């Protein structure tokens, strides 16, 4: 998911270099949203291993 996002971003910047800051902001927003799912998974997993709520 993250590689596809980065690829599209660079393609867009290659087409219109003047949009670099705008596209970068949007890419970070979408990256954070997409990154949430695996990170929540890692967080919950670590929590269950090391500090399990009984």
């Amino acid at each position, binding site marked *: 998911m993250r590689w596809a996002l980065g690829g599209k971003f660079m393609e867009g910047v290659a087409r219109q270099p003047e949009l670099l800051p705008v596209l970068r902001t949007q890419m970070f*927003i979408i990256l*954070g949203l997409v990154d949430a799912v695996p990170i*929540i998974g*890692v*967080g*919950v997993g*670590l929590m269950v291993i090391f500090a399990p709520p009984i």
Partner: protein
Amino acid sequence: MGFWAINVDSIFWSVFLGVVFCVIFRTAAKKATAGVPGGLQNAVEMIVDFIDDTTSSIFQHTNSLIAPMALTIFVWVFLLNLMDLVPVDWIPEAAMAMGIHYMKVVPSTDPNITLGLAFSVFGLIIFFSIKEKGVGGFVKELTCHPFEVSLRSPLTWLFLPINLVLETVTLIAKPVSLGLRLFGNLYAGEMIFILIALMYTGLALGLTAAVLQWAWAVFHVLVITLQAFIFAVLTVVYLAQAHDVSDEH
């Protein structure tokens, strides 16, 4: 103690960092000059301008609450996350020397704090939805999207419960994902700090651990800022959606 436990340490640090935020920004505002700005005023202006640009590009309606709230959320969550960069045993060791045997320094690793923030935003979403669209409009939005329900054909009334289920899931997913995203990122980050610190003992492995800790800390600086920014941006996006009075049908 379970659900009704109040984590005093997290609350103390949250309030303390909130006060720090208010003091810094108020000092910068009172000493603001129209001439060449000093260091503090420059930094504060940069942050305020950045949040102002982002908010005005997302939120097209008029509401004087949104931009200051976005600024508060961004800077406060950033400060909460920043506590993760303090080496993980310094403050708890100091606290143990003073007689406090358990202290969690990073409030955003406490799901109570992050979900509390997220559900406060949820309350605001509901409040502004009902204020802008009325209770009828809000219920209509919940029951008439995404499948159209028209009064003329009673067959479409079958879609009412289906729409309600889908829209309720979307509505509840907003605060839950908002809170859990911040919690997951910060908890995983702190846990990795702790694990790297624990797993490498002895001089040679200790040096490896030092390099790893440094690398993870650099990455974590990005994660901290990004997560605070995402929380603020998503809050503004959800509130903009709450203000959207859509009248296409």
